[in-house]
C-alpha cells in the first residue's frame, strides 16, 4: 500500500523514538533520541518490549514544572535611606519585585 492510499483510508504511520542507536534494513540507522516511522514491523514488538524504542507521542521523560523565582529588593526606610537612594536602588534592579518596609 502506498503512503497516500494508506493515509487516505485513515491510517497513520506509527512513530517511535529510539532510545538507543538502531540499525535496520535496508542500511538505515536511527540514533538515540531521534524519531523514526519506518522501522520494520517485525522488529517493533521486541524493540518496545526491550525498552529500546518508545511511542513518540509520549513525553520522552517526565519534566517537573520549573517555578522561576523572581528576585526581590527589600528597602527598609527605617535604616535612614532617603527617597532618592531608594529610587536609585529600584531603578538599578528593574527585574526585581520591590518591597518597601517602614517598620521601626
Amino acid at each position, binding site marked *: 500500500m502506498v503512503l497516500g492510499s494508506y493515509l487516505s483510508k485513515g491510517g497513520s504511520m506509527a512513530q517511535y523514538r529510539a532510545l*538507543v*542507536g*538502531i*540499525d*535496520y*534494513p535496508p542500511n538505515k540507522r536511527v540514533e*538515540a533520541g531521534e524519531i523514526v516511522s519506518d*522501522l*520494520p514491523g*517485525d*522488529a517493533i514488538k*521486541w*524493540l518496545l*518490549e*526491550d525498552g*529500546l524504542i518508545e511511542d513518540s507521542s509520549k513525553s520522552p521523560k517526565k519534566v517537573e514544572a520549573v517555578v522561576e523565582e523572581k528576585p526581590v529588593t527589600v528597602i527598609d526606610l527605617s535604616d535612614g535611606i532617603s527617597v532618592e537612594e531608594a529610587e536609585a536602588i529600584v531603578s538599578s534592579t528593574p527585574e526585581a519585585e520591590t518591597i518597601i518596609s517602614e517598620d521601626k
Partner: protein
Amino acid sequence: MPTFRHGKNTVVLFDKFDLSTYFNSVSTSAMAEAVETTTFGSANKTYAVGMKDGTVSLEGLWAGDVSGVDEVLATSVASATKKIITVGSEGAAIGRRAKLINTDETSYEISSAVADMVSISAEAQASGTVGGLDGGVLLAAQQSVTATVNNTSVDNSASSANGGVGHLHVTANTRNGAATIKIQHSANNSTWADLIVFTATTSATTTSERIEVAAGTTVNRYLRTIVSAFAGSSGSATITVGFARR
C-alpha cells in the same frame, strides 16, 4: 559427536596486548564456595552455594622485547588498575567460546635453568562485584579492520535477561583516524540495537575496555560486533571483542 579443540590455537589477550605467542599454557578456574548447612537429624551433609571466585594461571617463555610479556606482566603485578583478560581456548574465530576476566595480577615468576629456556608464570585473581570470570563468545577475533564492517552474528538460540559484560582489545593500530566499535543485539538477526558502545579508539593507539551491561537487561538472541565509524585514510586496527551473558 562433540567437537573437541586442540589447545594450540588458544589466544590470550591481556589489556591492549596480544600475548598469545608468549604463553604455552593457560588455565582459568571458576569456583564457588560450598557452605555446609547440615543440621541434626540429617543422614547426609547438605550445602549451600556461597561466594563465587575465579583465577587465571599463565605459563610461557620469557622475552624482554618492547611491549612483550616481561614488560607487561612485570608492571602489572599489584597494579591498582584491573587487568582485562580474554582467553579463547577454542581459538580466534567469531562464535568461539572465551573467558572474560577482570583481574588483579597477583604473581609473576621468572625461572632460569642452565639447560632450558627462560620461562615465566603468572597468576591473576578474578575480581568483580557481579562476576569477575564470565564465559562468553568472541564477536571479533584478532580481526584486522581497514573500513567500517558489520561482523557475522552469533546465535545464542535464545535471549537472556540478566545483562552481561563486553571486552574490547585493540592490540595493534596503525590507522590514522578514530574507530567506533560496538556490540549490537537483535531478536531477528535483521534489525540491530546498540548494546555496548566502546570508547572511540584514537588514531594509531592500542587500547582495551571492559563494559558491564546492567543486571536485568535483556540481551537478545543474536549478537554481533560492528565498526560503525572508521576515520582516516590508511592503516588498520586489529580488534578482538568478546561478550558474556549472565
